[in-house]
């Protein structure tokens, strides 16, 4: 990697592997959205053009499709960078962690914020490749600190877990309110 020598080169961004795949997907996505313009927006008989509900979706989608077309053209005319499909596989692999996130969010209203956070932090730490007791312990401590900070102290708007209902009276109230 070279050093930046001019102001223009400072702002310049360079292509990375997989660019053309992204360019194709984005263009197809733009064209699909644009094709839905008449179905998904309305045009009212009264009112000026710029005040129409269709105006801004049309402006943005037409420009988006135009830019996406030129971006694809730019990618297609540039030298090929090796590693295109390995890169796409990398993107697909990240969906696993999106799944972890959604599963975590889905579990909280049932299993409670504190237990879910501790369990997910430990599982994710192990999934990320850490096996030492130090790292697993650190994940437990950090997750408890996060819960105490946000739920107990800042009283952030998060649901109480249904599982807490099964706890004995005194403890139940504390868990429902603070954890």
């Amino acid at each position: 990697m070279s050093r930046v020598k001019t102001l223009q080169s400072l702002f310049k961004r360079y292509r990375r592997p997989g660019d053309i795949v992204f360019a194709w997907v984005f263009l197809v996505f733009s064209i699909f959205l644009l094709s839905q313009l008449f179905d998904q927006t309305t045009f009212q008989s009264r009112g000026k053009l710029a005040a129409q509900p269709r105006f801004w979706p049309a402006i943005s989608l037409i420009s988006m499709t135009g830019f996406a077309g030129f971006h694809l053209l730019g990618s297609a005319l540039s030298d090929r960078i090796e590693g295109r499909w390995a890169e796409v596989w990398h993107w697909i692999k990240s969906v696993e962690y999106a799944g972890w996130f959604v599963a975590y969010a889905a579990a909280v209203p049932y299993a409670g914020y504190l237990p879910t956070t501790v369990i997910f932090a430990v599982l994710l730490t192990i999934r990320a490749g850490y096996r030492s007791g130090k790292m697993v312990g650190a994940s437990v401590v950090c997750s408890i600190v996060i819960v105490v900070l946000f739920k107990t102290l800042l009283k952030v708007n998060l649901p109480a877990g249904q599982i807490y209902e099964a706890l004995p009276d005194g403890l139940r109230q504390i868990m429902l309110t603070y954890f």
Partner: protein
Amino acid sequence: MENIFLGLEMLARWDVMLALFVGSIGGVIIGAIPGVGPAVAIAILLPATFSLDPIVGLTMLLGIYGSSMYGGAIPAILINTPGTAVNALTSYDGYPMTENGEGHRALSLAYSASFWGGIFGILCLILLSPVLALIAPMFGSREIFLAAMLGIILVILAHRGQIFAAGMLAMFGIFLQTIGLDAVTYTQRYTFGYSFLSSGVNLIVVVLGLFALSQAFFLLTAPDNSPDAKPVKGRMSVGMRELMKHKRVATVASGFGVILGMIPGTGEFTAQFMSYTYAQKTSKDPEKFGKGSPEGLIASEAANNAVPAAAMIPLLALGIPGEALTAMMLSVFYVHNVIPGPQLFQNNIDLVYGLYFALIALNIIVMVFLLFSTNLLTKIIRVPTRFLGVMILILSFVGVYSLRNSLTDCMISAVFGVFGLILKRLNLPIVPIILGMVLGGIMEVKLRSAMPRLNSPLDMIDRPITFILFAIILLVLALHVRTLIKEYRAHEPIEDHDMHDSQTR
């Protein structure tokens, strides 16, 4: 004068001071950890501040915004990895100084220069306030529409080499904010019959996905790494004395920071580069630049720290953000019922002064904190990157779910997280999407409210400010075409650099 005292009074509360303290210290730590950055932190904390008093929430997030660049200098100097993207130039001279055994000197100089830049920026903001209060009311719907349009154009053109990509992403942002029920005509737009899309795509959900979750996914899917910064020995206060020998460089660099910070899309990068070039051209030892020149370090750090205060000018006076962080700060203001724009200076000038004093206080808090805790920070930045990814993922949940306890929001955010990861891996910019959403919304509202007074398109530019803004738009476009032609004729060889993905490591 009375307003100044009212502003001071606003800060003189224990909860405000505590928020400022937490925000400033937190900002330094967040800035110092490569791979987190202020955007991630503000995105996560934004919903958490909903329950706080407006001024408390605002000062906390302002603290993070204003102090992260101080922290970002530490890994830039010690391990050649900028903590935040805008500290990239700091590593040019900071790291060679560390290699020469002058890590302590480099850090203390960076802190002092940052402090100088920060205070200079705020003083300019305070001095400019009466002028802003005078000019801001002259901005009506048409002026704000054109200013927002100029912002979009500048943001697209600032992404050289990826202008088409930046353009399509900015347009995607504008499109995203049109989804849902149209507020005026009550008609559905791109909801595809799904009720969850009727209320639109929430900006904070998108921000959390694109900045926080994408970063978590990015770190979790990349090989594990643990930055190894060596502790430094010596008093950190010595830098101020050395800075006094380079007052001129520090002041000019701060001046660049202030002027360029006001222009959307270009802020820190241009300011740093221009001050660096100025410092090199006027230096007695220009050959030392890039090999450990204190002047280069000062120029870079003073310039980037003067920017946050300056970037508040278009934000506070016109309600127009120039980059991602100010766009987030705009939503912070909205959430807390403070509407930036011309009326703010007329009706809430005490709050404006309160924010200025908060900026001054945060610079002092950060400076004092750094004098004593640099070595502690060198230990904190050693957090393994994948573990950091796990924690960002856990924290992102608080941000998204606390908004309205919606699993759908989490799913939308996760989709944007994957999208953000792809953009980061491809070295494509995320900022145009956010600015497209914010500025697109402003443009739609302002154009609609200007419509009844327009009989022909030319009426759009028949007022002095609208005409000037329109002329600037034409000038910017013409200059861009000129640069393209010059570049084409020069046939410059392609020299790849990783400046723009430096913040993701």
